[in-house]
């Protein structure tokens, strides 16, 4: 039984190794596909969003072919480490906690976190007291989860696999508020589903938790790739490509100060 298992693993591995060897100059980009307007899937299964456009622009700049791989958020760093893709471009905030496991490029955008709640919820602010006794939905393994868990100790924190699920539950009234990136919340509030709710305020970012913004993550020690990405980010910021993509999705500058 052992032998047949090993054989199987070996053949599978060899087949895949051959496949990987052919495609050396393509860069595989991991993304989530459930975080509109940054990265999400359309009805015909296409990945779209700010992250995707930025990734494509960066790949053009670096003269490599990019291939996208979708991966659930809470497994996205292990999947990177396991070699399922070479970089994560999925609005991942640069934090000290993550830096122990992966290397980051410079930020490619930075927008503040915020809280959205039902219009009739009576929640008027984002302080611990404002949300005491309420149920807050947050996507797990995010800076927002870490922040909520630390700050809103008098509230019930519910962890969701993606932002879209926490939105579904806020719309149906299962939870009272959600904590997420302001651009993501605003995008959702524009949809019919978001009519129930509004933004009650933005959260002042805490550097130790929220970090300097979203960066591109690569495996530890791949400094050459980080350098290439950093140069490409600078290049698209300089040649106007970044601003073009920014304007396509947001009426304000998402790069931040």
């Amino acid at each position, binding site marked *: 039984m*052992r032998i047949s298992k090993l054989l199987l693993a070996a053949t599978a591995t060899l087949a895949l190794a051959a496949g990987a060897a052919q495609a050396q100059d393509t860069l595989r980009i991991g993304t989530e596909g459930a975080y509109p307007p940054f990265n999400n899937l359309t009805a015909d299964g296409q990945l779209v969003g700010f992250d995707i456009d930025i990734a494509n622009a960066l790949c053009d700049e670096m003269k490599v072919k990019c291939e996208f791989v979708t991966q659930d958020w*809470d*497994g996205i*760093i*292990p999947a990177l*480490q396991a070699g399922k893709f070479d970089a994560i471009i999925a609005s991942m905030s640069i934090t000290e*906690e993550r830096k*122990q*496991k992966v290397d980051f490029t410079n930020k490619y955008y930075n927008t503040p976190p915020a809280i959205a709640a039902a219009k009739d919820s009576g929640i008027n602010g984002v302080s611990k007291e404002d949300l005491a006794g309420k149920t807050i*939905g947050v996507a*797990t*393994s995010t800076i927002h989860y*870490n922040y909520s868990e630390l700050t809103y100790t008098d509230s019930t924190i*519910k*962890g*969701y*696999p993606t932002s879209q*699920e926490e939105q*579904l*539950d806020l*719309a*149906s*009234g*299962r939870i009272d508020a959600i904590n997420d990136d302001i651009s993501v919340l605003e995008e959702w509030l524009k949809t019919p589903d978001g009519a129930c709710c509004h933004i009650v305020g933005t959260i002042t970012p805490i550097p130790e938790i929220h970090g300097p913004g979203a960066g591109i993550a690569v495996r530890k020690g791949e400094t050459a790739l980080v350098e290439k990405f950093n140069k490409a980010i600078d290049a698209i910021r300089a040649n106007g490509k970044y601003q073009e993509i920014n304007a396509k999705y947001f009426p304000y500058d998402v790069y931040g100060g």
Partner: protein
Amino acid sequence: MTLATTADDAMPVPKARAWTRERVAGTMLLGLWAAVFAALAAYLVAAWNPELFSRWAPAYLSGLGTTMLLVVISTLLGAILSVPVAWGRMAKNPVARFLAYCWVYFFRGTPLLAQTFLIYYGAGSFSGWLQEHGLWFFFREAWNCAILAFTLNTSAYQAEILRGAIQSVPKGQWEGAASLGLHTVQTLRKVIMPQALIVALRPYGNEVVLMIKSSAVVALITVPDLMGQTRLAFSRSFDFQTYIWAALIYLAVVEALRHGVDWIERRITRHLKR
């Protein structure tokens, strides 16, 4: 890891056994297992992180509590619900038989994960209607949705266990009871069930084990069970040992349960052994 099966291997070995092909293969495989366990132990020792442990141990405990509570409540509710379903499966009335058949077929023919999602997120999309009918207070809570999904699911499996056990009792027992003037309920209670439960014990035990294992999916609808805490711990620490801890806990619980069932079975079948 302790194994019950080693017990009957402990026969006295009078003379040295020959090194047959089987023995060589068996020894090699055991060596392989020993290597795997040694590697695992070495990994756990090397990766041991007291800070990580003290940070997550309470979460794991509360997760285990949630898992066990979910399994106990839904298994008990499922047992109650399984009685009418099993009755329907054995009824003479074709309508009852058909309905019970559909019930069993539906819940055993579709994945529990899909049923759980359907109930949780499905109820969410009818929240307006449910509110009007005063049912929203129930479906609002992920915990209730999980209990409901698991109860319905296990009721179908338990109904089949119950039916199989009752039908395993020979017809003559019914006839014998009838000839003594016992009516149906009396016969069931005094004659059939004591015999059927012996047959059903092992399948019931297996069903509880299956429930413990499949309860790992409730984390996907925000119920913080053991698996949910594990995923949280892993996604925060990116440390693979968090999964190994969970694996050891699940194995310990399931093994304890299996040995418990074995023990009960030995006790209640003592009168059947010569």
